[in-house]
């Protein structure tokens, strides 16, 4: 019988899949058969290898942790509206995981006997459950398994680089070269040569009869089987294999392999009687596949004009979009995209150098700072950069500085052209304060480290994530060595920079709700950069500085290195590494979606799953901040 409680259960369930696609009356009936279960924090819902319950579960309040007690790995957290314990619905076997209340929770237990008829009669419901079941066994901390699951590793190893073959539509030759069936072989060959193509279509009344390719000429004519005066009808391959024009590269490759042919004829409806639209050769596929990083990088390196680089940047963005869509591992995506971005910057510098009236008077190094320096910049954001040049005699300094400032102005302008916004704080090599000789830089760094005011801490936090974009590595190494030796002499600097790392506002408030901006342009938006990414980045920097580790500026690589250096904190560092990757991916997705830097996020546009993902990273943030505050005794300078 319908009652007040069952109505409440239905009210809740109807907001979440798969119940949201169920008919009202069905849901009403199902809700009446639900059991409401209260679970105190830490209590078991089911244990590993326990006999299947007659229910599966929906979290009404609280959170449930799914884990494998043998490997001690956490598989998933289920939050309000999530379903778990689906195994008995899908397979008649015991539970393969343990479910434990991560927080005090209220669960709705849905009787499988009552639910099965619904899922069996509704394809969408059963699809959702199957997918959900499959994804519940994923492990966000275990990247390798994810790789295997998506079948990515194979295509990685085979080609040495990532090929996103499946989602790209094919690009085919629209200009069709045809001849009639009675055309002589010689005429056809002349036509092919004239048009520089390897095949000719034999048509009768607009309908494709057959095809003659270079191979046919070689095998059937040059061998002497047919004279060049014979008609093409004798040597053409027939009938032609036709396909619809809308196919993906993968489909086209499959079709060629299946029929052992190298050309596909495309018609409007895919049948031999349809209107001809084009021809697709193996070569076309190769060109399409050429949209891979190696090909783009080659093209960038050949660019002679900034404008060409700009065009190629678009392909990089396409590639990025595809990678994200395919959910490739973030570390890999980021590495490839960062490298391509780096290539663009290098090329811009090269082009700018070529336009200078004289070659540089001394060696120099162009540094990428901030997120670009850390190799975490996937979208175009602001350009933060600096230039260091070899020491010159005092009297030469003004002239040398002027040369490099001129160069920097060209480069920053070029970078702006290809899509990098100017840095609003003017932290660019075109600013005389950021275009200095090695000696000047050393003085500046010493000043920051000896007098760590808030400004100095901020400057050094941006600057210390540098990486070399172009030029002489030796200059950069000398700077790094100087930083480490100065920090060693003035360890108090670490406390200040640790304090700085704790200044970022916290990402979540009480009851794990998001804290949104209170005012300004981004009111009610969540500041992903400031509240979630920055604490992780800052923490990694101070920790890696305290270990004097050189040449790792990427945040998750820093955490991985830290995990190696401090095995007792390995778990936390790896969690931070994972959280950083997850957040950057998130920011990139949001940025691509809204065509901005992805920094501010409109919470309402997020799915429940996305919100949950975000929240999970907050735990790592909280813990790393605690670690820093204790390790560097930050409270000492706050008191």
């Amino acid at each position, binding site marked *: 019988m319908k009652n*007040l409680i069952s109505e409440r259960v239905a009210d809740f369930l109807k907001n979440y899949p798969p119940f949201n696609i169920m008919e009202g009356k069905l849901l009403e009936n199902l809700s009446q058969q639900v059991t409401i*279960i*209260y679970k105190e924090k830490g209590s078991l819902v089911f244990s590993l290898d326990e006999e299947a319950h007659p229910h599966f579960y929906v979290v009404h309040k609280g959170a449930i942790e799914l884990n494998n007690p043998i490997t001690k790995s956490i598989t998933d957290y289920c939050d309000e509206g999530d379903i778990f314990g689906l195994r008995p619905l899908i397979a008649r076997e015991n539970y393969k995981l343990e479910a434990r209340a991560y927080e005090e929770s209220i669960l709705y237990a849905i009787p499988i006997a009552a639910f099965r008829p619904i899922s069996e009669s509704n394809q969408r419901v059963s699809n959702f459950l199957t997918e959900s079941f499959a994804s519940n066994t994923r492990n966000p901390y275990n990247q390798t398994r994810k790789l295997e699951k998506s079948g990515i590793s194979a295509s990685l190893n085979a080609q040495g680089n990532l090929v996103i073959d499946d989602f790209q539509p094919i690009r085919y030759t629209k200009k069709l070269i045809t001849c009639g069936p009675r055309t002589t072989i010689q005429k056809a060959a002349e036509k092919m040569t004239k048009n520089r193509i390897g095949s000719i279509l034999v048509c009768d009344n607009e309908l494709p009869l057959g095809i003659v390719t270079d191979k046919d000429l070689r095998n059937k004519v040059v061998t002497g089987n047919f004279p060049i005066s014979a008609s093409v009808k004798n040597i053409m391959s027939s009938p032609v294999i036709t396909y619809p024009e809308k196919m993906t590269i993968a489909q086209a490759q499959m079709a060629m392999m299946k029929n052992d042919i190298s050309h596909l004829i495309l018609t409007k409806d895919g049948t031999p009687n349809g209107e001809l639209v084009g021809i697709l050769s193996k070569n076309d596929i190769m060109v399409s596949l050429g949209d891979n990083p190696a090909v783009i990088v080659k093209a960038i390196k050949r660019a002679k004009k900034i404008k060409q680089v700009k065009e190629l940047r678009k392909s990089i963005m396409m590639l990025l979009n595809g990678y994200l869509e395919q959910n490739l591992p973030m570390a890999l995506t980021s590495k490839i995209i960062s490298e391509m971005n780096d290539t663009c910057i290098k090329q811009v510098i090269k082009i700018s150098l070529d336009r200078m009236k004289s070659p540089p008077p001394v060696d120099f190094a162009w540094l990428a700072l901030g997120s670009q320096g850390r190799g975490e910049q996937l979208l175009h954001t602001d350009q933060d950069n600096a230039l260091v040049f070899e020491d010159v005699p005092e009297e030469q300094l003004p002239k040398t500085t002027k040369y490099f400032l001129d160069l920097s102005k060209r480069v920053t302008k070029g970078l702006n052209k290809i899509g990098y916004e100017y840095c609003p704080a003017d932290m660019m090599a075109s600013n005389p304060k950021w275009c200095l000789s090695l000696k000047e830089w050393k003085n500046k760094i010493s000043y920051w480290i000896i007098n760590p005011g808030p400004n100095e801490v901020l400057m050094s936090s941006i600057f210390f994530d540098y990486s070399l974009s172009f030029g002489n590595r030796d200059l950069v190494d000398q700077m790094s060595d100087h930083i480490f030796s100065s920090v060693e002499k003035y360890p108090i600097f670490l406390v200040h920079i640790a304090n700085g790392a704790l200044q970022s506002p916290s990402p979540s408030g009480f009851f794990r709700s998001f804290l949104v901006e209170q005012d300004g342009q981004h009111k009610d938006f969540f500041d992903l950069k400031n509240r979630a990414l920055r604490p992780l980045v800052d923490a990694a920097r101070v920790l890696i500085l305290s270990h004097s580790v050189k040449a790792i500026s990427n945040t998750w690589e820093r955490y991985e290195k830290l995990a190696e250096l401090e095995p007792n904190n390995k778990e936390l560092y790896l969690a931070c590494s994972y959280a950083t990757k997850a957040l950057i991916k998130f920011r990139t997705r949001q940025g691509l979606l809204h065509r901005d830097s992805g920094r501010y996020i409109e919470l309402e546009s997020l799915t429940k799953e996305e919100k949950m993902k975000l929240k999970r990273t907050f735990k790592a943030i909280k813990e790393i901040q605690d670690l820093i505050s204790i390790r560097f005794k930050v409270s000492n300078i706050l008191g």
Partner: protein
Amino acid sequence: MGIFDRSIKYPDYWQEYADLFKQSVPKEFNELTFVVLDTETTGFDKTDDRILSIGALKLKGQSIQVDGVFDVYIAQNTFKKDSVPIHGILNNSQQDCISEEEAIQKFLKYAANHIIVAHHAGFDIGMINSALKRMGLPKLKNTYLDTGVLYKKTLIKSYLVQPKDHYSLDDLAEKFSISKKDRHTALGDAYITALAFLKILVKIKEKKELSLKNLK
């Protein structure tokens, strides 16, 4: 005969109810069934006021069966206007109303020999006992627990924090962040009471082993 006859003949349903108490209750705390109860009434006077509705649910091993809830509305002979704004129950409104006697009879069958839990249980039990009295029947035989009293047991004893004498169901709902939707319907309040009860048990368990004896 008369008052010396110890075997007064009660109706069968009462006899069945009373007989259940000859059985022993489960020893394991988790095996116990609790009937969480709330009544909506026309007022607070045990003799003049009447029960408008009884809502109850069964709690066993921390779970509630949604189709196993109890929800009845009682037809009123004397209708007091004052209580309508609180409970929103109108005399002879859409709800299917049954007689007081039928409602009590059903409740006895539902409650059986289980342990009754209610917020300020004394009042709800008292109202039901008054109804039983009108029907010429003895008082409820069930053991009962009061979430108001139990809650006070969970509070820290300190000179700095002076506990209130009286904690309303609203207070509890707020302390335990339980949604107050459906407040002031008998079944809605019973549900809130049930959740509060479960949360109180967790707190008590931190201090001592759960047993019926420890709660009383």
